Each structure stands twice: as C-alpha cells, then as structure tokens.
C-alpha cells in the first residue's frame, strides 16, 4: 500500500482509478476463464465423441466390442425413468409449494417443513441413493427397477420444484386473490382456478431445471444397483391389445445414459472412452438445451410481468 499522505490529490485519484480498473479487469478475466473451461469441456466432448454418434450407435445394445456398442437400452431407460420422475415430482412438488405459500398457517409444523425443504436441497444425491437402497429395495423389496429409480430421482428434485413453485406463486399480485374472493370464490377455487394457471410458466421453468438435473444424475442410480450391461428393452408401455397401455415396464431392470457413460469411462480401452464421450455429448446437449430453455422461459416471463 502506498502512503497516501505523501501523495497529491490528483495522484490519489489516479491511483484509485487504476486499482478500480485493475479489479474490473480481474473480474472479467475470472469470468472469461470460467467461460473458457465450459467451452473447452464442450469442445472436448465434441472432438472425442461427435464422430461416434450415428444411427447404429443409437439403435444398438452395449457390447464387449466398443465399435459395436450403442446406447439403445440406456436412452430408452433414461426416457422411462424420466417419465416416472416427472409424474411423481411435479404434482407432489407443486402441491407442496402451493400449500406452503397459500395455505400454511404460521406454526411449528410449517416452520419444520420449511427448514426441512431447505435442508433436503443440500443433501448429497448419493444419500438419496442410500435411502433407496435401504428403504425401497431392502425393506420394501421393490427391486432394482425403473420405478425405484424414478421415485428416487423424484425425491431428489422435489426441493427444486417446491422452491420454483413458491417463487412463482409469490410473484402473483395479491389483487388476483382479492378479486377472486370478492366474486365469491372460496380458497380452492381461487388457488386452482387463478393462482395455479398464473403460476404455470414459473412452475414449468422449475420442472425443466429439475428434470435436467435428474437426467444427468448418476450417483443415486449406481447405489440402487442399476445394471450396466443391459442387452434388452423393458416391456413396451403401449401394447397392441386392449387396454393398449401396460405398466410392466415399471418393474423392469434398466440402465440409463449416465450409468452407461460412467461404465465406459471406467474401462481402460480407448474405444470405450470414445463411446463415453459420445454418450456424454448427447447428455450434455440435452441438459444444456433444457437449462437454456428454462432460462429463456424465465426471461420471457419477466418481460411479460413488466
């Protein structure tokens, strides 16, 4: 540090300006470095994996020979698990968010639930995997199935959807509620008829972010014990006979894309690393697109509110 009593006013101002500029430059360089890392990561995946993605890769089962292996069972598994996760997490999370924001009285139980949601958001994902292993698989005997994986991921992203719902509901003007009450609507008519529709874009944003988190999540699914070598597809959800839909697939063994990728990364042969990069690139593209979609939606929403 320079001793400022020795300096003239002009020098003090100049040195202050200089350190201002230096800090702004520092901030910008930290930022660019971070951007560079993300960019390098994306380019690395493209260089390693883009050439491997073709029709055969998407329609083949895993194989001992890296060049024959594909991700058919993995992407089908991911899609089915995501259906379960969305079907469980979105209704539960939205209902919980509505309750906390619109109904909850200020009491001990409400406080408990709120602290609990905050805490759950900070629990590592692998702990959810242990919950699923100890409770759903060992105690309830549900098996290493698509349903258990979907349920586990649903619990994992529940806090994300609850928080998004609460924020969306909180941003709805009080006048909407008052107008509905003034017209004679009761609480549920107001919440179900006016609050929920108005909050829909915000909830959708949260749901997309939550699903993008779930689709890339690996650790809890490993703990459940998903198999990495699955050379068959779960029973089809739609059948040729009445009632055309069946739920046998819920109880099927499965693998998902992140698991398949992890399996391939862990092998020593470079051929499998290429497969891992190709899987990772698809995963990366999906999560980045979903996140970008959520960000765009939020941006549109904020513009519409102004």
């Amino acid at each position, binding site marked *: 540090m320079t001793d400022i009593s020795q300096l003239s006013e002009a020098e003090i101002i100049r040195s*202050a300006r200089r350190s*201002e500029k230096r800090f702004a430059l*520092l*901030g910008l360089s*930290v*930022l660019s470095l*971070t951007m560079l890392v*993300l960019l390098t*990561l994306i380019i*690395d*995946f493209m260089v*390693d994996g883009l050439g491997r993605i073709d029709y055969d890769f998407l329609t083949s089962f895993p194989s001992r020979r890296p060049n024959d292996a594909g991700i058919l069972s993995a992407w089908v598994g991911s899609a089915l698990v995501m259906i379960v996760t969305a079907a469980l997490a979105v209704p*539960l999370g939205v*209902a*919980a968010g*509505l*309750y906390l924001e619109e*109904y909850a009285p200020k009491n001990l139980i409400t406080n*408990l*639930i709120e*602290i*609990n*949601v*905050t*805490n*759950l958001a*900070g*629990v*590592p*994902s*692998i*702990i959810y995997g*242990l919950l699923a*292993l*100890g*409770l759903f698989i060992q105690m309830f005997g549900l098996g290493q199935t698509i349903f258990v994986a979907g349920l586990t991921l649903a619990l994992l992203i*529940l806090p994300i959807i*609850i928080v998004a719902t609460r924020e969306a509901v909180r941003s709805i003007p009080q006048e909407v509620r008052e107008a509905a009450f003034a017209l004679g609507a*009761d*609480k*549920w*008519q107001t919440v179900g008829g006016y609050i929920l529709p108005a909050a829909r874009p915000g909830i959708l944003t949260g749901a997309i972010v939550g699903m*993008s*988190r779930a689709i*890339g999540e*690996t*650790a809890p699914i*490993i*703990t459940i014990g998903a198999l990495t070598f699955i050379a068959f597809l779960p029973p089809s959800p739609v059948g040729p006979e009445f009632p055309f839909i069946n739920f046998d697939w819920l109880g099927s063994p499965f693998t998902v894309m992140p698991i398949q990728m*992890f399996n391939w*990364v862990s092998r020593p042969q470079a051929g499998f690393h290429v497969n891992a*990069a190709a899987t*990772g690139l698809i*995963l*990366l593209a999906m*999560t980045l697109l979903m*996140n*970008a979609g959520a*960000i765009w939606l939020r*941006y549109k929403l904020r513009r519409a509110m102004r």
Partner: protein
Amino acid sequence: MPLLVSPRFLARRRLVDRAMRAMMFAAAFVSVLVTMGIVYVLVSESVRFFAQVSMLDFLTDTQWTPVFQDKHFGIMTLVSGTLMTSGIALLVAVPAGTILAIYLSEFAPPALREIIKPFLELIAGVPTVAFGYFALLFLTPLFQTFIPGLAGFNLLVPGIVMGIMILPYIVSVSEDAMRAVPNTLREGAYALGYTRLQTGVKVVIPGALSGITAAYMLGMSRAVGETMVVAIAAGQQAKIALNPLEGAATITAYIVQISLGDVPHDSIAYLTIFAAGLTLFLMTLTFNVIAFVLRRKYREVY
C-alpha cells in the same frame, strides 16, 4: 333476496376445499417423511455396523480395508480424501467466487449481469459425470505435461474441477447477500470519497459477511457430497490423503465402488456404505446448518 346458490353446491364446495387442503398438506409433509426415511436408514444400518466394529476403531484406525481378509475400518482415511478434494475446490472457488460476486454486484452493468448469471446456471447444469470425464481424460493429461509426478488418478484435478462446479452456487449466494446490503450504505461510502472497489471491500463485504460465509459453507457442503468427479478421477485407494498429486478414495467414491460390486446384503461391506453415508450426511448437515443460521442472520439485519 333469493338464495342463488344451492346449499348442496356449497356443501360440496366445502368438501372439495377441505380435501384439496388436506392433499396439499400431505404433499408438503412428504418432504419431512423423506428426511425421516434418510435418517432412519442411515442410523439403523449404522447401528448394525457399530455392533460389529467399535466406534473408537472407526474414528482412529488409519486403514480402511473392509473387503480384505485383514479388515480395518478407519473412516478418517476416506474423510481425509474428502476434505482434501473439497479443500482444493474451496481454494479455487472462494477467491474466484468472491471476486466474481463483487464484480457482479458492484461493477458489472445490469445488461452484462443479465448475461453472466444465466451462463453460470449453465455450468451448474452440466451433468457431474461429464465433469468426471473431463477431469480424467482431458485435464489430468494436460496437467501432467507441466506437473511432474501427477498420477493418472489424483486429488488435485478433481478438486479443481469441483471448484469450478461449486463456483455458480458461491457466486449466486454471496451476490444475493451483497445486493441485500442497503444502497444507503454504498451512497454513504461514495460520499466519503470511496471508490467502488473500496466500497465493495470495506463496506459491502463486511455488511454481507454472514451471507458470504454461508455461501462458502454451502459450497463446501456441495463439494463434500460431490460423487461422480471423484469416483471417476480420484482413484479408489483408501488411505490417509496427504499428497494431492496422488489418488485417494473419498467417502462418496467408496460408496460408489462398493455399490458397483456384488455385495451381499448382510455382509459387513454392505453395512460400511451406510456408516460412511452417515458420516457424509453429518458432515454436509453441519455445513448446511451453519449456512442456514448465517443466512437467516443477514436476512434479519437488513
């Protein structure tokens, strides 16, 4: 005035209202059940574990070999690996995150801020397994060209990658805290002739200190619980981690390692992952609780 609404409609409406209310409460209560389920599973399986292994051995043994003939259960080996990688992550994320947060809250024009924040969210959205691949197959070979002695599996690179992963959380939470500092304080500082940098360092940071510390705690908690990067790139050898250039197992990497193998449900190896999980849960809980208390504090101040 004639009654326009039939009493039956009103009765049905009241029923629906009550039913919906009860359903929503039940949904909100599910989160409490999840926590209870987690605590129950971890504690009950750990009780079975500690029936066979003494707590003293668990905390003081310096070896971790549950699947070997000569079994040792010193959790401190895994804890040391976890703390080493998380510590490296914080060494990266704390300075970078604090600088970025000050830059965003005090320097950046609003338009730039609107671009940077979503960009940081994109980083947070990258699947962790992708970061693991990046750490093992891109960054480690790159770092090996200028750090001699860096092993193929090491703690340094996963630590740095985790630092980048937790950066968005640290920036977002600490910037929130900085923005909660009232503008009157900033204006007072400007009026005394402070520059933006001096205001940031001498007024905003002290004013937002509890929130910024909370951000570090949340970042630490995330790093401790992060799994895939260390499972892929840090190796699986459980030992007291002293050298970041060598590999060592973390708590999370160990749980993954055991889960991948075929471990019988009643074996001691199966129980170890719950004991390790309980240790992990208590570590993250500690950081989360400190963060929670600190954030509540700064919300009260302003």
